[in-house]
């Protein structure tokens, strides 16, 4: 694999990881919306 292709793949993977991180945050938001207030902490 050429250096340029490898670099491009790295950028794509990193972008995917950023999306994954945002999805984690979205997961919390969705769970808060769906489950409502907690009964106890």
């Amino acid at each position, binding site marked *: 694999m050429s250096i340029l292709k490898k670099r491009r793949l790295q950028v794509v993977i990193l972008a995917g*990881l950023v999306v994954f991180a945002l999805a984690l945050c979205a997961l919390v938001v969705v769970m808060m919306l769906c489950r409502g207030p907690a009964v106890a902490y």
Partner: protein
Amino acid sequence: MNPSGAAVVKPSILSDLGELTKLRLSFLVLLTTLVGFLLGWRGPIDYVLLGATLLGTALSAAGASALNQWLERDLDALMPRTADRPLPARRMHPSDALLFGLLCCVSGVVILGCFANLLTAFLAALTIIIYAALYTPCKRITELNTLIGAIPGALPPLLGWTAATDQTGLGGWILFLILWFWQMPHFLAIAWLYRDQYAAAGFKMLTTRDSEGWATSWQTLIYSAALLAVSLLPGTVGMASPYYFFAALALGASMMYLSIEFIRNRNTPSARRLFFASIIYLPLLLGALVAFSR
């Protein structure tokens, strides 16, 4: 409306997410990691590596904050300063926060291991473990918790350094020391300002039994003097130019002056001035270090 008649603003879900991940603290962690990376790196910046380092660190910091709040949710409910966090206020289920924290921590460490190196991943894991598993329970056990808590707070610049250089070097350890000593006057000032709340929650803090403030204020001076000394090291070991040396000298002297003022007055305004000065101090010092680095 609350009993005093003032309107109560209900936090939004996004602000709760920011609170759970301690957004401001995580931003500071990222800033210090960035400084460590920039100081360690030689040649044209590898932006993919830098981006992955910051992403992995951000996830680790967010996860550690979530785990910390999951562990402390009962005590947070006792302090007005923290009672409105999403867990003690019961706007979020504890299991959700735990799951989020664990996922963030694991993914952050894995990203650092895959993109940077195993040493950086190890340091990130160590930071999370000390913060969540050692510092958090120690708050209820010993006054030394501040000293322990300053370790994970000081590791991020070393983490940035190791991501850039593949090793811990003198420069990385100097950054660690600067961050460690900086946190002491910073946290002692906070602990003084909120000493009643810490006492009510049962946290073991020096400030809760130091009603006159002598021990607390003197410690801020001692740590500020140590901070001044270690902050001059980059100028003496060839990491930074003489311009940095004089900038660090002026900034460190300011911190010492405000610590002396705290000793003389030992009241809320003097503690608040020291606290805010410490907030301004760090970006200025790190900015000078990057600007005048060699």
